[in-house]
């Protein structure tokens, strides 16, 4: 046991054991855990992530809202995690299964219309977290001091921010947001195992699939690559089965596709799916309110036939993420299975076959993330002795950069950089006498700004007017431990400085992230051409501008009309070429202009040197 020292009276409790909880805020279920007596334990049964709103009463959360989700779907919010940090545009293509009425007066923050008024996704999540907090208090006998909340590795800035806001609204102090796969690996204690190891985390939840490759290096756990499918999860298996059941039902039991019937079908499909993880066959009973009743026997083989395309998709995601990490399946030593969907024997078989290895399934796949978060929360609360501290490193999901001349995106923090990260890059002015700089922060893999996601725009003012290229502007990107970005720009000479916290009104949806990454590979060749063209256009523009400025200064003095004519002509031709947008002809025009202005440039230089030397004695150069 710990050895105690005698303390001054009244100081006991100064270094008190703080009570920290880990919360897995999931699409389908939410669960809290805490380290008690040295071991992480869940604090209650999982709470379904359901909120039922009533006109004149407090909302019902969890199991209490379960019945209502069938009776009154319009006022019951399910899978709210899918709406977190999303704008109205992102929600336009929500599946009809959700059956929500949206109020999009503010496109940045769409609200769900309920009997208790319009609710944003953040408010709904806060209601879930409030319930979790209440349960945690009951189990611990005290209010938790703080929490670690897990988010999918793919959550972008807006989604992470929304999660933090929800926690704050629920009265929880957030120590940190950590990625779900990292939490799962921590729960298995993999961070304390071998010196070096590759770990894959296969997290197949209700709504999403996240596959991550983690690298353990001397106690440091680092996310090598992460990827997934935000529209593939247990819900999809339910949906496939529900569709099949609806199609099999005889005409006498014709089920209208109302939100109520659909939810009933889904509930039955889910029950059947879960039963089939243990049973070889199950009886499905369908009796939606207002429709007839129908029963059928469903063998596991039939279900697996329906599920096979979804399992194939899941394995394809594994393949892609491993490719991204530059890792062969056989190199992965441990595969952590997370999420209820990994209970399906079909899913386990396919994943084990892909990696050619036994899977880690000892810890309840529905609890493993919350348990890992609890361990991390305990560490952050300062309850662990010094040497026990664990270093968790995560990565940014998409490159972060800035728009430069010609609409090119310059990457400052590349994708998969370890966070927290801070990187600075120097930029300069493009025009003589420029006193301001407009900064455009973008996120994405493509080289052209127009193909990336715009995160923020801000201006640096008060730069001392100087020649183009003379000012030195340092732009610093910082991504904190929660994955949130701040950008700062500073001009060295004038000390002008400006900063922005990037909190976009709405960010990228997971599938957009996915699409952007895939796009960058698909368009690699085309992008390179576009980049080359923009670069040569920028260069051509610079050459023309510099020459015109020189001619205006001393062209009349150093050249006669006959000498000026070919230079002006070549300049005009270069401008035309820039306008036409053909890289090769721009390059040729630049060369022609440089060739015919060669003697003029030489004369300018000679005169410059003569001026510099004039009025000085020879001794000064001795």
């Amino acid at each position, binding site marked *: 046991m710990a050895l105690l020292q005698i303390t001054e009276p*009244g100081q006991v409790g100064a270094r008190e054991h703080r009570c920290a909880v880990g919360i897995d805020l999931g699409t389908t279920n939410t669960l809290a855990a805490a*380290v008690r007596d040295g071991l992480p334990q869940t604090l209650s049964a999982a709470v379904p992530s359901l909120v039922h709103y009533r006109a004149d009463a407090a909302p019902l959360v969890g199991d209490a809202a379960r019945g209502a989700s069938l009776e009154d779907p319009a006022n019951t919010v399910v899978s709210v995690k899918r709406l977190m940090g999303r704008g109205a545009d992102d929600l336009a293509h929500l599946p009809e299964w959700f059956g929500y009425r949206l109020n999009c007066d503010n496109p940045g923050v769409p609200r769900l219309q309920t009997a208790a008024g319009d609710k944003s996704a953040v408010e709904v999540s806060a209601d879930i977290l409030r319930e979790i907090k209440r349960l945690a208090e009951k189990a611990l006998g005290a209010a938790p001091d703080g929490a670690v909340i897990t988010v999918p590795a793919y959550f972008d800035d807006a989604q992470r921010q929304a999660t933090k806001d929800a926690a704050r609204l629920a009265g929880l102090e957030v120590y940190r947001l950590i990625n779900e796969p990292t939490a799962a690996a921590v729960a298995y204690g993999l961070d304390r195992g071998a010196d070096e190891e590759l770990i894959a985390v296969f997290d197949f939840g209700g709504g999403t699939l996240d596959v991550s490759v983690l690298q353990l290096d001397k106690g440091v756990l680092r996310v090598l690559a992460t990827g997934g499918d935000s529209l593939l999860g247990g819900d999809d298996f339910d949906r496939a089965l529900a569709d099949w059941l609806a199609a099999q039902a005889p005409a006498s039991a014709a089920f209208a596709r109302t939100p109520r019937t659909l939810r009933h079908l889904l509930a039955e499909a889910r029950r059947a799916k879960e039963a089939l993880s243990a049973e070889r066959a199950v009886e499905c009973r369908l009796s939606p309110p207002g429709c007839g009743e129908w029963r059928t026997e469903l063998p596991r083989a039939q279900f697996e036939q329906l599920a096979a395309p979804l399992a194939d998709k899941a394995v394809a995601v594994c393949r892609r993420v491993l490719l991204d990490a530059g890792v062969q399946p056989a190199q992965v030593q441990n595969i952590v299975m997370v999420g209820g969907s990994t209970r399906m024997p079909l899913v386990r078989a396919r994943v084990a076959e892909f990696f050619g290895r036994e899977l880690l399934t000892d810890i309840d796949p529905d609890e493993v993330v919350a348990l890992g978060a609890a361990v991390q929360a305990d560490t952050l609360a300062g309850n662990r002795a010094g040497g026990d501290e664990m270093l968790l490193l995560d990565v940014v999901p998409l490159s972060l950069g800035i728009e430069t001349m010609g609409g090119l995106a310059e990457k400052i923090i590349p994708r998969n950089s370890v966070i927290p990260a801070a990187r600075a890059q120097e930029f300069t002015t493009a025009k003589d006498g420029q006193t301001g700089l407009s900064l455009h922060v973008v996120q994405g893999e493509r080289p052209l700004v127009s193909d990336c996601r715009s995160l923020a725009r801000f201006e640096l003012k008060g730069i001392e007017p100087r020649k183009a290229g003379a000012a030195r502007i340092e732009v610093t990107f910082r991504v904190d431990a929660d994955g949130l970005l701040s950008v700062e720009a500073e001009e060295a000479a004038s000390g002008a400085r400006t900063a922005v916290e990037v909190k976009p009104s709405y960010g990228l949806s997971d599938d957009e992230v996915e699409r952007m990454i895939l796009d960058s590979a698909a368009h690699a060749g085309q992008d390179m051409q576009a980049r080359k063209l923009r670069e040569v256009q920028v260069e051509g523009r610079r050459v023309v501008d510099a020459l015109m400025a020189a001619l205006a200064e001393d062209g009349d003095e150093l050249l006669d009309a006959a000498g000026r004519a070919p230079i002006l002509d070549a300049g005009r031709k270069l401008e035309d070429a820039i306008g036409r947008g053909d890289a090769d002809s721009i390059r040729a025009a630049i060369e022609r202009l440089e060739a015919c202005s060669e003697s003029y440039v030489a004369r300018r230089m000679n005169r410059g040197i003569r001026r510099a030397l004039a009025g000085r004695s020879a001794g000064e150069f001795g």
Partner: protein
Amino acid sequence: MAITLTPAAAGRMKDFLERRGSGIGVRLGVKTTGCSGLAYTIEYADQVGVDDRVFEDRGVKVLIDAASLVYLDGAEVDFAKEGLNEGFRFNNPNEKDRCGCGESFSI
């Protein structure tokens, strides 16, 4: 009802009290620690409280409030060195379970 000190513990307590220059003895206690049961405390004692029980063992006054005594009755306090660490340790017959880090216990 009694609390005992090992010779090593009593010697150290005397040393510490002497060095501090004041105090009538040492107060032992237990406190609840949020989410993991109970933990022991040792403080200097400057005065006797109304619900304190006072023991004397090997020349050291030991004070315990009534609420803590139930948990500590029959316990022995030892002084030990473990590697670079040294400090006091409770050998408590009432203890049923101890948490992994050894900071707290339950009864």
